[in-house]
């Protein structure tokens, strides 16, 4: 069941909310929790009931290991817990990948049936590893099994994050007030959910029709023009942005309807002025996990620059591998590891020469955003491509026009007069910029890209808009000090009209359910 489906919005969600309200009104806190767990398991099982057993076994195993660690902080027990979790993830997510690579390396013929990746396994595995590590370090309290179950299965964040931390979730579940619906939570939550839905079904799904055919063509060895390759790369850049941003908003909004505040996971990442800042804004909870449970345990920046870069690279390679069992994801992680290392080196260099005192920060802000954005777009190509060959085909189109003459629109030739001949001698043709026809309606595509760029660079985001309602944990550190009076959400008629209009359009566009991109990770 997808958040962006009629059955979820008009059947599942109202029933779960009403049931929660009905039970909570009678003061049955534990029954309300049980109701939410049952609903969450139903939500998970809707996709494939066979994997319900897997998530339940995983919960029981980790809670048992956590209990043992509480009694005895044994490294052996912790290691057992982590190995079993990673083993489960490794089997379902990476077994086919490893077997295929072993076959290639050894010219072998080991056969392994295609293993279907259980939904959300990457997310609930990481969540539970953090729990085990924190129990070992005595950073947890005695949690109740019911509360722990909800921590893992809570449907707004179960499928694609945020990767929540027990410290921020379990205290919310144990409050007496949990289980009682409030109009303020419903108003704030539904508004955030509606904006997220709009981003997904109107923006992400409509720009996808310009991205997908270009990447498919690249996989099929089509000689793409420079404009098609960049158009496809940019279209995917915005598709992923609005898809993930929309999902994150919907998750935050849904949780809020039940009175739960989720951690911030996405905060206008394309506004970042550096790649380091980008990773503080994109998939924030994954970055936090990688920092706290991989980068810092590896040594972080404690042993000099070389070690720092090595640790960064390892962390980002693992981060890439977490996204998918394929070399394209590993290379994508490596590209970001390299970008971040260069960024740190650059910061150290400018600090040493004192460039920061000469107003270079202003220049960095102006060019930093552009350079960061371009670097991210280039890396997304590797992330999206189904094979290395497909990615290389895209890059060849983007940077070298695939070795062909650069095509210009045919209508330009008569307008240029004599200049057109000179341009031809310089290696231009007049076949049309989107010669292969894979970018879809090119005029429409270019206009959409332009407006989407304006939105991601200059418009306030959903959570900024609702900042007075404290919509997400960890939002405060992003908020600008100066007080903005306009475009601040209020529960009044004007905003009800705006949100209702957005809701109506979004509901109209839920004609074909399309999965969120992060569901595959």
């Amino acid at each position, binding site marked *: 069941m997808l958040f962006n489906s009629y059955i979820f919005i008009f059947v599942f969600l109202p029933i779960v909310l009403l049931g929660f309200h009905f039970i909570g009104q009678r003061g049955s806190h534990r029954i309300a929790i049980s109701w939410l767990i049952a609903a969450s398991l139903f939500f998970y099982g809707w996709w494939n009931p066979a994997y319900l057993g897997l998530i339940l076994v995983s919960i029981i195993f980790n809670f048992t290991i956590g209990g043992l660690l509480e009694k005895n902080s044994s490294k052996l027990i912790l290691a057992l817990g982590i190995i079993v979790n990673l083993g489960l993830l490794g089997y379902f997510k990476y077994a086919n990948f490893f077997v295929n690579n072993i076959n290639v390396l050894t010219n072998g013929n080991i056969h392994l049936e295609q293993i279907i990746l259980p939904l959300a396994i990457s997310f609930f595995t990481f969540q539970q590893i953090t729990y085990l590590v924190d129990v070992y370090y005595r950073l947890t309290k005695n949690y109740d099994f019911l509360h722990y179950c909800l921590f893992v299965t809570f449907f707004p964040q179960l499928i694609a994050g945020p990767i929540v931390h027990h410290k921020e979730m379990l205290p919310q579940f144990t409050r007496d007030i949990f289980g009682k619906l409030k109009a303020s939570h419903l*108003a704030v939550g539904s*508004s955030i959910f509606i904006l997220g839905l709009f981003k997904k079904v109107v923006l992400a799904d409509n720009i996808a029709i310009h991205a997908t055919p270009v990447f498919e063509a690249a996989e*099929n060895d089509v000689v793409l023009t420079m404009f098609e390759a960049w158009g496809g790369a940019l279209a995917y850049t915005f598709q992923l942005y609005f898809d993930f941003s929309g999902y994150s908003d919907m998750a935050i909004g849904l949780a809020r309807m039940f009175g739960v505040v989720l951690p911030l996971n996405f905060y206008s990442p394309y506004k970042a002025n550096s790649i380091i800042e980008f990773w503080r804004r994109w998939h924030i909870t994954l970055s936090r996990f990688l920092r706290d449970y991989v980068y810092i345990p590896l040594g972080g920046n404690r042993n000099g620059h070389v070690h720092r870069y090595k640790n960064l690279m390892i962390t980002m390679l693992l981060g890439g591998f977490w996204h998918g069992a394929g070399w394209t994801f590993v290379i994508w992680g490596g590209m970001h590891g390299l970008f971040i290392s260069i960024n740190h080196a650059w910061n150290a260099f400018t600090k040493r020469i004192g460039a920061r005192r000469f107003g270079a920060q202003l220049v960095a802000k102006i060019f930093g955003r552009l350079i960061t954005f371009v670097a991210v777009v280039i890396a997304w190509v590797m992330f999206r491509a189904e094979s290395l060959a497909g990615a290389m085909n895209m890059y060849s189109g983007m940077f070298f026009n695939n070795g062909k003459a650069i095509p210009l629109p045919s209508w330009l030739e008569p307008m240029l007069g004599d200049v057109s001949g000179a341009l031809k001698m310089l290696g231009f043709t007049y076949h049309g910029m989107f010669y292969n026809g*894979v970018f879809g309606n090119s005029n429409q595509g270019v206009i959409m890209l332009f407006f989407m760029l304006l939105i991601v660079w200059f418009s306030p985001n959903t959570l900024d808009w609702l900042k007075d309602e404290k919509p997400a944990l960890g939002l405060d550190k992003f908020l600008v000090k100066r007080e903005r009076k306009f475009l601040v959400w209020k529960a009044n008629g004007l905003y*009800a009209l705006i949100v*209702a209009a957005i809701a*109506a*359009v979004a509901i*109209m566009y839920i*004609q074909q359910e399309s999965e969120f991109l992060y569901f595959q990770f």
Partner: protein
Amino acid sequence: MNNYEGYLFKILFLTSVFLLIVASISYIYDPAGIYHNSFKKHNSPSMYADRLLKSRNGLLWPEYSWNRRDVKKILAKKSNNIDCAIIGSSHVYQVSSVRKNKSLTNICESITNLGVDGGTFEDFLALSYELINKKQKPNTIVFGITPWALDFYRDKRWGRYGDSYYSMKEILTENKIEQNSKDVFDWSYLVNLINPLYFLQSIEQVGKKELKINEAPVFEHSIGLDTLVMLADGSIISRSKSITNSKTTRIPVGGTVYKIRPGSVYSEVAIALFTKLVRKLNESGINTVILMTPYHHNVWLNNNPTKKVLLEVEARIRKLGSVLGIDVLGSYNPEKNGCSPDEFFDHMHAKDSCLSKIAN
């Protein structure tokens, strides 16, 4: 001051009002004639079909007018003394016996074209039912099989003549199909009321004049008219603008995805039912032929997923033809039909000049 209860109520109320307005406009103007036939009181599909059979140059077919399945069903019933009836999708719209580039002349002197938009497996059964129950049956039925047509539910529009489909299915399976299983409410009709594209098409209808049935003037088929034309045999001449645009539009390598999805290209259950259909028609004295219309050359470049599907389905169709002992004409591969790249409107619709090279 925040009034959260009031705000929630307003959101619910206003969203419902907006959607109700959209649904009402879509329902009232109903551009595809899905919900009612109010405008057809004086211009019924039956009247259109009657005029069409007598027309010299064909009839104009304005956008958002009659439902094509309504008209084709009546054509199936009313066209007599016909050699061949062809059933299929828009891929067979250009198959004709009344235009310069005649089709299938080796087997058909005259043709009734019963092709419909998105025509698929259920259309084969529904229209066959109309043909088998006629007094003057056609000598041959040609099934224009697209790569998606040997599977169930690849399109929903056959529901327009669902009764005919279920009647034929009952005959073939010798099982009575319960009325309640035929009358399952299709939510997609409700959802369609708030479909943004349907809404925009409905808006275009606001203020338009009442439809009339108009004979087409004498015109050049390769150029077309401002309005689409249905010729007397049911074949279709596209709008001149579409014909002109097709000459300059680039066809992407691999084509555009339309109803073809790798992994589930045909259903053996559907093929078994099709086998029964062919045998039933043969028992009734009607010959059957399978026709595959070509896809553009660019669809065959490189190893794209569409090409793989086309190869797989074509191989299965040839095997089916051999088992049934019936002719399989044409190919999805344009080169096997001798068609050139400029003989296509788009990646999957061949022009009459290309189709006339098959069985001629």
